């Protein structure tokens, strides 16, 4: 039987040789990016060119990135969390994973684009809009929705897709937009959402989840962030983007320094760059359809076109923070689980 422990020893030896650690140097910044790989591949080389610092990144959805940061708290693997809705960062503050830092642009940013202590700083703004399938609109003789009430039209029965408030920051932004539209009258707002429920085919797990179904006609319309809507339109899908005349909310996309980061100095340089006009003017260059947060940067023409009649209001972060849990629970009980 000596044969098998030879096997075992051999396999153990293989196991031990395997872990080849590709170590990072001090002039390298490591990043979890919530912004997509495509954007990262366009934007980050510009940072490397401007500063001479090498940037390694891996992309995760906001939830996955946050969970990793929490699990790695005692031994952080990255220096910066790049992108992701402010909501994610708010949850991160509770877990104590960020190191406050105020970049040079901190002073000129509007108050809603920064955490007062510098736990996070917003680098882009992302309003909610309506996206509809143009073919569906034509077939049903519908005009693109321009009011929240238009989504109650029975023509949309079982054909709307939008995000689930339990899992998507976008959905939470939508709930607070609706509350704002109804003057924070919860009874009226929930009455509206319950009426809309019967038109909803699916509440998707991620905010972006419904965009492609609408583009491909699996669903007719939905409420989404403008960046994803313009993205799918540029891919060639026949979709119409419209905005509600009552107004809609928008969510900031933020950046934060990780507490205990191995290379905090280069991490700070990345935050300096991301909050500067130099980075935010790249949005237009690479057709990344965010609204810049830095007041000196102009909005890209593709965005101004869509948003020319739009009424965008900021979500009140204090109000949202204080009521989020309760509102989401109420939404689950009264809207999501509504039995007819």
């Amino acid at each position, binding site marked *: *039987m*000596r*044969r*098998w*422990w030879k*096997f*075992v020893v051999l*396999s*153990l030896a*293989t*196991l031990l040789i*395997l*872990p*080849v*650690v*590709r170590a*990072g140097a001090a002039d390298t910044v490591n990043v979890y990016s919530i912004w*997509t*790989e*495509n954007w990262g*591949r366009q934007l980050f080389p510009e940072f490397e060119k401007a500063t001479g610092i090498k940037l390694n990144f*891996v*992309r995760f959805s906001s*939830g*996955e990135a*946050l*969970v990793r940061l*929490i*699990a*790695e708290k*005692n*031994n952080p*693997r*990255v220096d910066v969390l790049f992108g992701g809705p402010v909501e994610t960062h708010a*949850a991160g503050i509770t*877990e104590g994973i960020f190191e406050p830092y105020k970049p040079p642009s901190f002073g000129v940013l509007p108050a809603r684009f920064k955490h007062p202590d510098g736990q996070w700083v917003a680098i882009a703004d992302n309003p909610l809009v309506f996206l509809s399938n143009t073919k569906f609109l034509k077939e049903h003789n519908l005009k693109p929705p321009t009011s929240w009430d238009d989504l109650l039209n029975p023509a949309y*029965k*079982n*054909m709307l897709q939008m995000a689930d408030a*339990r*899992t998507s920051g976008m959905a939470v932004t939508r709930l607070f937009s609706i509350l704002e539209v109804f003057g924070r009258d919860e009874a009226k707002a929930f009455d509206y959402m319950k009426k809309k429920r019967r038109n909803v*085919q*699916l*509440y998707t*797990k*991620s905010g972006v989840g419904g*965009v*492609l*179904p609408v*583009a*491909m*006609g*699996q*669903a007719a319309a939905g409420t989404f962030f403008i960046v994803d809507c313009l*993205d799918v339109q540029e*891919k*060639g*899908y026949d979709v119409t983007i419209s905005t509600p005349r009552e107004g809609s909310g928008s969510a900031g996309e933020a950046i934060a320094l990780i507490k205990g980061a191995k290379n905090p100095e280069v991490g700070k340089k990345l935050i300096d760059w991301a909050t500067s006009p130099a980075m935010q003017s790249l949005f237009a260059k690479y057709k990344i359809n965010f609204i810049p947060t830095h007041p000196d940067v102009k909005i890209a023409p593709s965005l101004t076109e869509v948003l020319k009649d739009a009424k965008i209001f900021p979500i009140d972060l204090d109000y949202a923070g204080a009521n989020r849990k309760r509102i989401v629970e109420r939404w*689950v009980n009264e809207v*999501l689980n509504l039995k007819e």
Partner: protein
Amino acid sequence: MRGWGAGEDQPLIRLGDSMNAATAWLAEWRRTLRDPALSITVLVLWALLGLFILFPLVKLSAWTFVDGGHFTLANLQAIFQDPNHRQAFWNSLLLAALVGLCGTTLGFLYAFTAVRTNLSRAWITILDAASLLPLISPPFTTAIATILSFGPRGLITYHILGIKGFTIYGLYSTLFSETLTYFPIAYLTLKPILAAIDPNVEDMAFSLGSSRWRVFRTVTLPLTIPGLANAFLLLFAASLADFATPLILAGNNFPVLPTQAYLQITGLFDMKGGAVLSFVLLVPALVVYLLQRYWVSRRYYVTVTGKVGAQTTIKSVAPWARSPLLGACLLVAAGILYFYVLLFYTSVVVALGANHAWTWQHYQVVFTAGLRAIHDTLIIAGAGMPLGGLYGILVGYLVAKKIFPGRQAMEIVSMINYSLPGTIVGIAYLMAFNDPPLVLTGTAFIIVACYVFRYSPTGIRATVALLQQIDPSIEEASEGLGAGSRTTFRRITIPLILPAFFAGLGVVFIRSMTAISATIFLVSINWTLITVRILEDMTTLDLGSAAAFSVLVVVIVFVVIALISGLLRRFRAHGAVEITSILGG
């Protein structure tokens, strides 16, 4: 000489009958200690199991159930007060049982047709290839293809059948998609077992005047029971742990636990809640395992004996029944093939549903920006493959053939990571190996370890099922003729369990190329995977690149599996069981 199906007990159980439990236990210890090779192997395996299965699990449970130094069930209570979660628990059980049932049936149909209807090699190759496709495709492929075909604007439901407003989300579509994805596991488990049933056994029944149906019912089917039970167990556990399919297809009215756990963690950032939901999944997995074990161990299934009769032709299926059987298999194969044609089509048009102009641009992305992911994935899968195969037969052999203390515990522990949802295994690994003493996060090693310990149970189960069929008297005869235990192991046991080794190794390779749920938490700045890129492309609405990556994965795995099958044919010892190939081709 023991015969087949003689209702005799296994030696272990006889041992238990004749002595009282305590002395038996002591005897086990003595026996184990007398055999240093055995005790060293057992110790090493326990060390590995402890480190890569129990340690992460304990770390995660401590985190879930200990609050401020005290044990608490508050988290468990909080989760189960939510009617949504209770509903999800029952839904998960229902779905897993149905997938187990449908998948095993379909797998049996395939295996039976492949080995019992005298098909020509070409047909068998077609069946093998078709059943391999779902197994080797990246997650989401079947689910996405299901939506594209049967969704509200699906190719079939809307464009061909003209049904409007069809709702696809729910139990049936999830069941359909999971059955298609997982039935090949049943096929792989059942095929060698059916092949190993000597046609002479059936012949005897025929010569005694039995009808074909009676032979099938009273000889063939009962002899396949260990395989059927194993297949059901594997499918049940796979479905129970699958989160990708329900994530896309289950919709809002059919929540299942793995999806709820994933959402609890990544949506509500509630890792404790997610962990609790996942721990709950262990209970049904364990129950089914014990049932299966109890049911199978009460019978005796030796069909591979030392006595080789004259080779006989297989007569178990009437000539008229061949065509319907083959037809049914081909129908399923056509369905599967259609899905993959759709996948390929998606990868060569600019944007499916908008612009159907022919293009190679998605493959250009794959071979430029995706090159690193391909490179990393191949290294990781290549490293995991031999380790997984070896680990699978070692554990399988020990558990099925050797008597040592903690044997049953080893079998159960080796199954744990397979039956937990990947998300939770990934997070447990992340939490266990991020801090000293053992820092593995950021290395390729943690991903390899995760794959080996999560996906080897197929190899283990295949080894156990094969060994249960082999008459111990073959080994006894070898030793009686003067061969040492080493020679016996090398000349008898190894050739007999070689198919299981290759099955185990093949599955680990396939899973390393295609799995995502656990490793999404283990990829790092240094090591990334193709599947992560696929998920990424799906979230950025880039169906074309996602499809191109998927096609690439399918092609790589097909090539590797074909190579393994070739190897298997070369290595097969003369006179060994006629198993053409456990992996197809």
